[in-house]
Structure formats: C-alpha cells, structure tokens
C-alpha cells in the first residue's frame, strides 16, 4: 500500500487544516481541496483542472520540491488576479511523496 502524505491547507477563511492526501490516485491539490470540502463547491475547480480558470490558485508557504509551472499554468497565472510570486494552480500540482509537509493557502475567490 502506498503511503499518504500530509498537507496543510489554509482555507479562504484563514483556518488551517492538516489533511492526508493519497499518492496513488492521480489526484492533484485542487481535487484534494474539493474532496475535503475546504472551499465551497462552485468556487474551486470550475474548469475541472485544465488550468483555464485559476479558481484553484493557492500560495505555497514552505519550501517543498514542486513540479515546475508548465506553459498552461504560466499563461493562466499571467491573467489571474491576486497573483503573488508563490502562486500556483492547485490543479497542476499532482500529489506525490515529494509533497510531504507541503503548506499552502487558498487565494481569494475572484
């Protein structure tokens, strides 16, 4: 059995949740937030995870090795609002063992 990783997610109300994330279900961080219902339905993952809406934008709060931003993510973030240097799209970060201890905060709804 593969190991879960622990990820800390601060929701849009400022409450931090420590959640267990499976590494063997091809899930991404946006889906993790939805699965734990940490953002109201209809306010996250609107495009379904195609890097086309930025509703899953989050800020990465600690140093954990993450995959580089791909072209789609770069393009979307260049048109999104409330973007900071540590902004990422949750839908483009797939959950692997490397994410153990990741801490993120959800960007405001826009």
């Amino acid at each position, binding site marked *: 059995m593969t190991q879960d990783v622990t990820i800390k997610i601060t929701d849009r109300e400022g409450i931090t949740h420590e959640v267990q994330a499976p590494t063997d279900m091809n899930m991404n961080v946006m889906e993790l937030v939805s699965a734990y219902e940490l953002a*109201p339905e*209809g306010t996250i993952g*609107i*495009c379904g995870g195609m890097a*086309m*809406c930025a509703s899953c934008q989050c800020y990465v709060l600690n140093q954990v090795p993450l995959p580089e931003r791909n072209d789609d993510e770069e393009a979307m973030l*260049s048109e999104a609002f409330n973007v900071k240097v540590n902004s990422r799209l949750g839908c483009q970060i797939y959950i692997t063992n490397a994410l153990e201890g990741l801490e993120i905060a959800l960007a405001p709804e*826009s």
Partner: protein
Amino acid sequence: MIKTDILIIGAGPTGLFAVFEAGLLKLKCHILDSLPQPGGQLSELYPKKPIYDIPGFPEVLAGDLVNNLMEQIKQFEPGFTLGERAETIEKQEDGTFIVTSDKGKKFHALVVAIAGGLGSFEPRKPIIEDIEFYENKGVKYFIKNPEKFRNKRVVIAGGGDSALDWSVFLSNVASEVTLIHRRNEFRGALDSVEKVQELKNLGKIKMITPGEVVGLNGAEHLESIDVEINGAHRNIPTDYFIPLFGLTPKLGPIANWGLEIEKNAIKVNNALDYQTNIPGIFAIGDVNTYPGKLKLILCGFHEATLMCQAAYQIINPGKKYLMKYTTVSGIDGFDGTRKEAPKAVVKAID
C-alpha cells in the same frame, strides 16, 4: 412572446440532449443561453480538448460532441435564443411559466428545465479600484458594436485569443489600439499572435508587455489609465479600456428564483425526475445537486431523459405513454423527416 412546451435554460450538452428526449415525446423545446453559441463549457472553454468518458466514444473532441448533438436534435427543430440570460421567472395561475431574459424577451413555457451548468458565463473583472464606476463610462468587458470605437483610443488587456483578436480587429477601427499583458508570451492561436506581431511592426498596435493596468482616471468618463511597467507607473490617455480576462460562470439571477440552493447548485428530488422544490421547474446536469451527484456529461444525459418523462406527465396529465426504443419505432422529426431502421428483407430460398 416565444411559446414552447419546455424552455431549456442552458445550451450545454445536457440541455441539447434534452431536446432529443423531449422530441421523442412530441414535446417542443426552446433553448436560452447567455453565450453566443451552443455547447456551454464545451464550446466556450475547451472545444479542442478530448473527452474520454462519453459511452460509445473512446475519444471525442468537446466541439465535435456539441456538433453531433446539434445534428442529433436538428429533426426536432429547437428554437434558440443565444446571448441572452434568463433573468426572472413567474409562475402563472395555470401552472405554466413566463421567463424573461435580460434583454426583455419573454418565453411562455409549460415546463422549465434549468440545464445551466455552473451558471451563466460572465466576464472576469480585474481588481482595479473604482472599476465599477467606469463600467459603461469607458470600461467594457464585451464588444458588441465595434463601431462604437471608431476613431477612439482603446486599451485592451489580456493574453488570450479574445484580447489578440479584438486588438487586430479594432486596429482598423479605432484611432489607437494598445494591448497590455502581464508577460510577453500570449496563449492565443499562432496566427493571431503573428498577426498582432505584424500590426505591431507596422505601428498599428502598441504593445505594453509586461504591464498591468492598476488605475483608472476621469471625472465623468474614462480619460486615462495607470499602467505598472516593471515597478514604474505610466499614465496613458484613452477613451476605452477593455479587459478581456476570460469568462467565469456565476449562478446569477437563477439563485433568486425561490429554488432551494445547496453547494452553489439547485437541489432536486434525487433520482426521481430532477424536479426542484417548485413543481414544473426541473434542474438537470451540472447545475443540480442531490446525494450521490456526479457532475459528468453522461449523468446529465440520463437526468435529461428522466426529466422529459416527468415533463410529459405534467404537460399531458393522464395521457398514457410507454417509452419506446428508437431502433424499433424510429424517429419522427417535427420537420417532417423520419429516421428508421431498414426493414428486414424476407425472401424465400429455392
């Protein structure tokens, strides 16, 4: 007033397929959608992307699925009102409905099926102080009549196809077009990017990249914008500012129709017939919620089918009907055409 049996709000795959199922029951449909083309998210967000979980289609492009659905429902001659948003609904004494669009068009329907997906698509508005004040006073999120910009100075912001395409188009209309984007790369179609490059080289489009519009100025009407360029601010006089940052779905006025809403979706009576708390109003596809709900196109098709059976009972109380198999009974279109399986040939063997 447009009269129909079923008014379908939303021209996404679920709404389109509802026309087919209604047609089999001799019910006529009219579709109302805020987008200018049918297909909902499939056309607006990802027409060129493949879908792998439509039964019978190992792979189908979203745009092709929409085209196929349009072909499939053609026989049933649905009416379309596109580019208008359903605004209000009034239940009549006889139990029928009058829905009014944001442009004042009225629809009289015996049954209403909301197939609104995640809601009507609305422009994503940039976070700039006082931007609401300047809406319709120089700030435009849509371009409806390009002539409005003739011989005017226009600033467009965005990095996608619509920002590129409108920059190209308006370069022949406006006196000055400036395109501002937060980075040098654009994600639009290659020929659009090349065209903008060409017009920039000719001096017909000014480009500011990387740049971001951070302020709007003007007493009664927009007079200039402030742009942040590499940390420095620059003031650019302009008559119009057109931010084109894509569209985002919002449940919109439907949220005020007295329907029970849960999780940003319309609650329905589980898997019975997808009727809402208001008899005669159904919600099908991504717009509804019930225990076990999955937002999948294939589930929307199923929900549309069951909804139509219930709509038939409302529209034809007491009238008997038994579901038919299209292979057995064929399809009679409202346009007079008929599709049917070829008859078996009976021939003796000598």
